[in-house]
Every structure is written in structure tokens, then in C-alpha cells.
């Protein structure tokens, strides 16, 4: 199905199942521990051997000598795989650095060996017997130091051009009566999902079956096929349950490749999980940024010049953190400049994490907006309202498909009690605590992606959906079932959803908050095909047939849905493909974040007290799972604001705090009362579902709202994340 014109009235608009706050259908499996995650596919791959990964102990250089003899002789060891023994390997289409290093080492903890043994303990013990001598080379590990060497990255579809300019930014900025020119920094961050990267591999006559934890089944399949120089059709990827990904499991990683190599070498299924201390440096991370924001405005708060430049680093051949992308779209302003610069660093490879681009970009831009509002003596909500735009400000002929940013801001302000905020910082005290309110806009694009599905109707009237879509904890199973139930007029318990298998039609996968809208639209397309075939078999005109309560009705006639499949299962398959509505209309999601913090006047410790997010993201397919997505994202925003920070040892070139004891994320005690409001919105430009993404909208802007609340509480402006107490302790006002 090609989606080329705005969606008209369709069966989803009934909202009898779609749009209902239903419990997750996979919930009981997960809460009882019976959902088989990749490492737990004991039944599918019995007799698996265990692989343990050895990571490089230097950041850059060469292996001078790799001695695996002691490891090979260790009890229970079946094989030791290294670059010498693995056979020829290519680099997958999404990978920047070879997943199995040696003799050249490109980053710390790059895998250099896999030890396969009869037990996990034997593999781990033997891995400790691998002896490696390195020749360390000097590398570049410090973004600030490498900033002057950064160059413009090549344009691509995801980030667009590295530079954009509209009007005369420099002239308008110089002439603006009120100006802001500040630099902000965001640190390297790690995904730190609960389930580590994990895979089991098995070979049968040249065909590889891979049970793995991946957000994008097809990307993983293509990645392993390319890396092992084999035909894509000889790869079967299975990933029904994923314990979080956050962008860290978008494509092939070392666990899957090494499991495949280990299984090939031993003739046994082999399972590999990256142990926690390896993940931060072995896998991908969100790269640090340095961001300069310049705003020029008239005295009455109309932005006349808006400039945002971002510097980030990556391995040679890698890409930038696209931290300026929201600034191209979020606020009006006749004169504009954005630029991204990329430095070569020898740190582990950077890639997508939790709203790449906008999450760190909004961390800078939305502090800048708060600072500018103060310079203008304007309320920060009002300042944003004054600079709303209903068209793409770089291409004014492109309207937004829907843009209720002002409603989000006003609703949030009213619901949060924003009018009670004292604009003068440091004025509100509650015992030892300094109390402040802060806010930020939220913004994240909607990304249309081709997505396929297959639906089956059997003689009992049951619907089965098959798609390689993944559920990374988001609720995909449930919203897909809701879509099929709505389309076919059956109950939820009459729908079975099968996900995460590369023998199913290729879906959008999970990432970039694009999964829900695209995957359900693919199911919608397949269901349209199934409805047509049902109507044909029942002798109905498919155009006016109504599917409800297990019946198909047309005019005065009606027949049980099941009867259409009485003589055999009916199968329909289709995919959603997009025309150019997203080119003629900018499709984005909008919101507002409001935060109340208390800062201990003595120690500077920050405690978030209340949070509110207002989201406009098209049709909300399941308000319960969508709310869970948003409160999870808000929690990540608090982490980004206050604690998440991969600390670089710039001498030795690695992330030092590479475990969950030292890379801190919020615990329950850090997270207060959270509220989420969804605006009632449908976007007929986005898809037949009239939905857009919502998960990542929930993180974009949160950290800045926290930073702005800390400023309101204390009068201390911090422009470097995370905002830990040591960065402002000596600037706190006297509480006593």
C-alpha cells in the first residue's frame, strides 16, 4: 500500500480497540520470567556451548603477540577464536569498526578473542588465560582538544546537510538588540539497557540461525551476512523479546558475530553475552558534544537570528551526533545558521542512543532559550510561544502537518501551576531546600519507514499477525494486536502476534520512535488486503463491508468472519510505503516538559520533585503503553541532566566507569511524581493510523527543564552536563 494522500476515514477511527489503555499481552510472560530472551533459548538450541569475549586492553595500537595456548588447554575449552583463526571478515553496513579486532586495535575493549567452553565458568576462566602483548599507539581521545581539527561530515539522508544557512545570520545577530552566545557540553553516555547484548548461534548445513537481542531484525541479518560473506538467504534471525535497546542494539554487534564464529568452529550452538564491564567500551555509545548556540532577538522577544553549531567525534568513517537538527525546525527566525563538525577520535564508536540528535541538541538549545527569555524579561513559556512557526523555517513553503506546540506549552503551564513560579532565582525556600521550577519545549521528528506484515485468518475466526517488527519493551505486541483486532472486527484474545523473526515480512523495526506508527501501518495495509479477500470470498463488496464483533456486514447481509476461511486459511501480506507527504509537509511531534526541583542548600544535592510532560504525537495507539514510554523517557532525561556520564580517561583512551556501579542512572528514589498528558490529536498526513512516534519525544527537553529548574532554584547556571554538585557547590547562595 502506498500512502500518498492524507488518510480519510478508515476502520481505525472507530477506536474501539486501538486507542484503548489495554494491558500488554506479553506482560504475564515477562512478569513470570517465562518470555525467552536471546540467552535463554534453551529449548530452541539445546546443548549450547558458552563463549566469553576478551576485550582489548589498549585503546589504539597493535597486538604484538597473542598467546592462546594456555586458554586452549584450560579445562572444558572447545575453541578459541581470534582474527587469525576466524577466516575472512568484512565490516557490516552499519558498523564503523571491525567487531573482531587484531592485529590492529581500534578502541578499548574491541573484541580480540572468544573463548568457547562447555560451561560459562570454564569459558570465563580460560578467557583469563589469554595472554596479549600490545604495541600501544598515541590516539585522540579528548573532544575539546580535537575540536579544531573537526571537519564537515558528508551529507546523508538522516542528518541532511552538515551546514544550513538562511538569510544573513551573522549580520542579523550582530544587529540584534538582545543577544545570547553561549557554549554547552553534553557527555558521552551509555545505553545501559538491562539485558546485555546476547546471542545464540547455530549452523545447519551452511545456514545460520541466530537468536539474538536486536531492535532491527533485517539490519542484523544483513549485517551478519555481509560480515561473514554469505548469502542473506542463509541467515535466520530470531528476536522475539528484547530487554531494552535504546539504540544500542540497532545492528550487528560483537555478541552475534562471535557466537556465529564460535558455533562454526565447534559445530555446536554457542551462546555469547557481553559481560557488563565490556559493554561501555565494546559497543556503541552516544557521543559527547560541544554546542554553541547564538540567539538574537528584538526587545519584544522576536528571534531574528538563530545559530546552533555542534562538534562531536567518532572513529574514522563514523558520523556526527546530529545535535542541531531540532534547531532547523523548532523556532521561527528569519536569519539562521546550523553546522555540524566531526572530529576523528579513537574512542569506541559513537552511534544512536535514545533520541539521537534531538536529545543532546535540546539539552543545549532549551537552556539557551531559558537564558534568552531571562535577558528579555519574558516568561520562558511566552518567549517560546512568540517564536512559534507553522512552517519549516528553512523552507517556508513546507507547512507542518500538525504543530500544536503552543497548546502543549499552555496546557503544561496551566496543569503544572507555572504561574506560581517566581521568575527571580533563589527566592523559594523549603527548610534546607532551594526550590525551583523549570520548563522546556519537546520536539522530535516523525520518521516514515517502509514496513511489512502478513496476516492470516483461520477457520475459527482467529487472526495471526507475522512481522519482523520487534518489541524492545515498548508494547509492539499489544498495539499490533490492537490494530489487527480493530481492522478485522475481532476481540484481542482472537489475535496472535508473532514478531522478531526474519522469515516474516520486513518491518520498520524499533528505533527513532518510528516503530509504532510504521509497524502498525504495515499491519493496517496487510489487513486491508485480508478484508478484501474475505469480502470477495463472502461475495461482499469490500468497499462497504463492515468488520465488527466477528461478523462481516454489508447492507442487510451478514456472515461470520470465520466462515470466509471455512475451506482454508486466508493469508494476506502487504507493506506500507510512503509517497512524498513527509516531503511536502514537515512531520514532527511536539510537547512540553515541566519540572520542579529542590536543591539542598548545603550540599547542592538535587532532588526532582515533580515532572509533567504534555505530548502531541498524533493518535496515541495505547495510552497505557505510551505513558510507560514517556515516563521511561522522562527518567532518562533526569539521568542525562544529573548523572549519566561516561568518563573518558584522556591519557589511556577509554571510558573508565564501565559498569553499573560507577555509571549511574536514576534509581527509584530519584524519580518523583510523574504525569503525562497526551493531546487529543490525529495526523492524517503521517499514515493511515494517523499516529506518530512518542517514546523519544518524552526525553527531548527534559534535561534542559531540569537545568532551568536548578537555575530558578539557585541562580546558578550550569551549561555542562551532567549537572553534578561539584560543578556549582561554591556558587550556591547562602541558605542560612
Amino acid at each position: 500500500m502506498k500512502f500518498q494522500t492524507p488518510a480519510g476515514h478508515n476502520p481505525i477511527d472507530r477506536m474501539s480497540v486501538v486507542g484503548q489503555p489495554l494491558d500488554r499481552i506479553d506482560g504475564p510472560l515477562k512478569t513470570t520470567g517465562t518470555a525467552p530472551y536471546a540467552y535463554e533459548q534453551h529449548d530452541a538450541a539445546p546443548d549450547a556451548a558458552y563463549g566469553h569475549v576478551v576485550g582489548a586492553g589498549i585503546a589504539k595500537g597493535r597486538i604484538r603477540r597473542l598467546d592462546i595456548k594456555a586458554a586452549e588447554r584450560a579445562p572444558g575449552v572447545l575453541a578459541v577464536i581470534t582474527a587469525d583463526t576466524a577466516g575472512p571478515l568484512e565490516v557490516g553496513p552499519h558498523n564503523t569498526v571491525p567487531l573482531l579486532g587484531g592485529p590492529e586495535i581500534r578502541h578499548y575493549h574491541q573484541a580480540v578473542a572468544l573463548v568457547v567452553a562447555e560451561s560459562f565458568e570454564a569459558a570465563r576462566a580460560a578467557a583469563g588465560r589469554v595472554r596479549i602483548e600490545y604495541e600501544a599507539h598515541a590516539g585522540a581521545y579528548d573532544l575539546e582538544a580535537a575540536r579544531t581539527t573537526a571537519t564537515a561530515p558528508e551529507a546523508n539522508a538522516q542528518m541532511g546537510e552538515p551546514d544550513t544557512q538562511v538569510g544573513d545570520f551573522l549580520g542579523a545577530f550582530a544587529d540584534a538588540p538582545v543577544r545570547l552566545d553561549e557554549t554547552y557540553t553534553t557527555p558521552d553516555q551509555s545505553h545501559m539497557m538491562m539485558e546485555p547484548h546476547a546471542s545464540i548461534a547455530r549452523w545447519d548445513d551452511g545456514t545460520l540461525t541466530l537468536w539474538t537481542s536486536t531492535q532491527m531484525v533485517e539490519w542484523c541479518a544483513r549485517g551478519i551476512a555481509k560480515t561473514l560473506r554469505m548469502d542473506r538467504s542463509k541467515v535466520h534471525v530470531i528476536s522475539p523479546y528484547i530487554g531494552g535497546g535504546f539504540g544500542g542494539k540497532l545492528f550487528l554487534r560483537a555478541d552475534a558475530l562471535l557466537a556465529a564464529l564460535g558455533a562454526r568452529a565447534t559445530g555446536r550452538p554457542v551462546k555469547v553475552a557481553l559481560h557488563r564491564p565490556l559493554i561501555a567500551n565494546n559497543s556503541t555509545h552516544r557521543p559527547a558534544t560541544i554546542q554553541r548556540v547564538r540567539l538574537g532577538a528584538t526587545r519584544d522577544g522576536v528571534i531574528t537570528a538563530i545559530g546552533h553549531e555542534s562538534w562531536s567525534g567518532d572513529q574514522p568513517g563514523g558520523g556526527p551526533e546530529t545535535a542541531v537538527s531540532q534547531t532547523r525546525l523548532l523556532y521561527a527566525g528569519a536569519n539562521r545558521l546550523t553546522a555540524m563538525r566531526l572530529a576523528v577520535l579513537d574512542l569506541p564508536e559513537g552511534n544512536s542512543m535514545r533520541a539521537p540528535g534531538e536529545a543532546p541538541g535540546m539539552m543545549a538549545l532549551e537552556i539557551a532559550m531559558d537564558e534568552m527569555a531571562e535577558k528579555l524579561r519574558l516568561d520562558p513559556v511566552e518567549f517560546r510561544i512568540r517564536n512559534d512557526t507553522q512552517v519549516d523555517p528553512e523552507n517556508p513553503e513546507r507547512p507542518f502537518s500538525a504543530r500544536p506546540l503552543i497548546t502543549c506549552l499552555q496546557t503544561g503551564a496551566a496543569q503544572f501551576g507555572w504561574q506560581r513560579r517566581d521568575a527571580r532565582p533563589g527566592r523559594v525556600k523549603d527548610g534546607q531546600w532551594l526550590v525551583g521550577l523549570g520548563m522546556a519545549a519537546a520536539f522530535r521528528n516523525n520518521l516514515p519507514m517502509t514496513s511489512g506484515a502478513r496476516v492470516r485468518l483461520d477457520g475459527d475466526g482467529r487472526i495471526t499477525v507475522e512481522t519482523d517488527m520487534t518489541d524492545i519493551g515498548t508494547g509492539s505486541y499489544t498495539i499490533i494486536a490492537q490494530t489487527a483486532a480493530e481492522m478485522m472486527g475481532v476481540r484481542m484474545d482472537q489475535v496472535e502476534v508473532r514478531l522478531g523473526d526474519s522469515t516474516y515480512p520486513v518491518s520498520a523495526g524499533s528505533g527513532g520512535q518510528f516503530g509504532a506508527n510504521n509497524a502498525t501501518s504495515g499491519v493496517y495495509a496487510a489487513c486491508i488486503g485480508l478484508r478484501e479477500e474475505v469480502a470477495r470470498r463472502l461475495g461482499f463488496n469490500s468497499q462497504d463491508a463492515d468488520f465488527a464483533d466477528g461478523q462481516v456486514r454489508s447492507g442487510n447481509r451478514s456472515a461470520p468472519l470465520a466462515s470466509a476461511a471455512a475451506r482454508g486459511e486466508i493469508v494476506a501480506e502487504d507493506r506500507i510505503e510512503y509517497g512524498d507527504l513527509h516531503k511536502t509537509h514537515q512531520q514532527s511531534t511536539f510537547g512540553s516538559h515541566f519540572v520542579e526541583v529542590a536543591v539542598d542548600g548545603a550540599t547542592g544535592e538535587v532532588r526532582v520533585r515533580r515532572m509533567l510532560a504534555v505530548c502531541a504525537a498524533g493518535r496515541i495507539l495505547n495510552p497505557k503503553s505510551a505513558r510507560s514510554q514517556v515516563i521511561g523517557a522522562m527518567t532518562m532525561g533526569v539521568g542525562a541532566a544529573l548523572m549519566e556520564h561516561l568518563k573518558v580517561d584522556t591519557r589511556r583512551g577509554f571510558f573508565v566507569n564501565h559498569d553499573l556501579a560507577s555509571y549511574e542512572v536514576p534509581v527509584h528514589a530519584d524519580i518523583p511524581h510523574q504525569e503525562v498528558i497526551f493531546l487529543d490529536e490525529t495526523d492524517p498526513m503521517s499514515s493511515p493510523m494517523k499516529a506518530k512516534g512518542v517514546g523519544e519525544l518524552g526525553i527531548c527537553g527534559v534535561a534542559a527543564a531540569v537545568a532551568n529548574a536548578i537555575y530558578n532554584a539557585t541562580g546558578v547556571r550550569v551549561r555542562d552536563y551532567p549537572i553534578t554538585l561539584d560543578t556549582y557547590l561554591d556558587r550556591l547562595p547562602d541558605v542560612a
Partner: protein
Amino acid sequence: MIPFTYERPGSPAEAAAAAAKPGAKLIAGGTNLLDLMKLEIETPVHLVDVNGLALDTIEATGDGGLRIGALVSNTDLAADARVRRDYAVLSRALVSGASGQLRNKATTAGNLLQRTRCPYFYDTAQPCNKRSPGSGCSAIGGMTRQLAIIGASEACIATHPSDMAVALRVLDAEIETLSGEGTTRRIPMAEFHRLPGDTPEIETALNAGNLITAVILPRPVPGRHVYRKVRDRASYAFALVSVAAIIEDGGRGRVALGGVAHKPWRVEAAESELARGARATTARLLEGARPSRDNAFKITLVERTLDAILSDARGAQ
């Protein structure tokens, strides 16, 4: 983890004798040791499991104190009515540490013997004098924000992570040990943990084959018992700094610090400055501190935290 043998001795004396053998290690709650064994930072070839020894009671001593068995869990110790009433600083320190699950497993003796959380100690690809004596200290000049500001050496700048130990130091507790030969010893908390010097791998005054049998608390110290732990998140994090204090009316009292040194940090002479306030006390307590650029804030943080404690104590009078 390397293969090891395992035994459950029948008495404290047997345990001490078994622990004296080369490569042997005592295990109680295992909340730290097992992690270290998995990473091959600790590589015992023989584990002596003391959990079966009847060292899990808290009893009154003849001189008005408490004798805490080595195997009393952190949870039980924190919840003991006598501890909560008479040694509140200890109870408060305990509940600020780790998580509920860990406190259920962790023991009194094990808590004292936990090892540093310096990230370079935990990364076996990095030099570390504590882990591999003579290999060098990779933390110096590296990521030092959490590390020691005082009492450190050119060999090691690690901190001791325990909260409980800081409270025991301010309470002047003593550690009772039993050797393989059957002799008992009482080691004052002040002498129990060592500064790193040239031998950061030697962390306590224990000898090989010494078994901690109990921690002895002297008669209760009157005053307001406070434990204030400052950290980057609200729970389940090690201290940036912590302050254990017992403040009497009139501003006299005792104070010990966590998160600043290789051992709980107390300078008795500094306590005479308490009546003059946090600045004077901190100056004396941390006299000779040599912080790095990344952890110099700890001095300010100690002073501000102590100031808040003293101010609260004044307000409560």
C-alpha cells in the same frame, strides 16, 4: 573466576586455622568477594565459608556496650532496637549503604573488609598497585573524582567505600579477632584500616588467618547522632563524602569522614574545633589534604555538610 575448593569449618578456631593456609580466603555474605573473583581480582584457591559459625548475635557487654557478632547482617544490625536507640549513627550509616538486598546478605565483618571501588582497581587491563603490587597507579592523573584527598600516597589514591566503618570509627569501636593459634586480639577501629603507603594491597591490621569474631561497641556516646551521606543520586551509590557525627549540647562532639581517604577519616584533635564551627573543624580535619582538580570539591563539601549538621544540632537544642 578460577577453580577453588570449599569448606565449612565447624568452629571459629577451625575457620581461622583454615584461613591461614596459602591462597585461602574467608567468605561470609560474598557481596564483594564474589564480584572480585569473577573479575579475577581476587583469586583464592580455597574458600572457607564461615556462615555456619554461630557469630550472628548482638549481646550486651559487662561495661554497658554491645558485642556485635561478625556475621550479624547489615540489615539486622541497623534494625536492632539497642543500636537504633543508643548508636543511631551506626544504624543511619548502615541504611545509607548499598541496597536492601545487599544489606540482607552483607555481614558486619565483611562490610569492614570490602575493598575499594576505585574503577582502575576493577579494570584488570589497567595498572593498579593494590591489585598487582608494583604495577603502578593508573588512577593518579586519571578519573579521580571519587578518590582520596588525604592520607593517600604515590602508590594509591583509593578510598574505603564503607559507610558502617565511618560510624564505627566515630564510636571508637574495637574489632575482636581470633588467630589460628587460638589467640584473641582487640584492634581499635583507628588502627584497623591502614593508609596505603607503599603497600596499598595491605588494607587492614589483620594477619593471615585472623578471623574477625565480633565488633565491640563501648558504652553509648551521648549526643545527637548524625550520618550524612552525599552522593550523585538519591540511593545506591557510594559517598562523594559522608560525615558521621555525634554532637553534644554546647557544640562539643566527634566527627569522622567517609569518601575522603583509604580509611574512615577521623582526627580527634580537630574535634576541639567543633565549637568554633565547620570551617575551623574541617581545616584541621583535612589539614595536609592533597586533592586533585577533580576532587578538590570534597573539601568544600565536607565543610558545608558539617556546617549543616552543626546548624541542625543548634536548631534542635
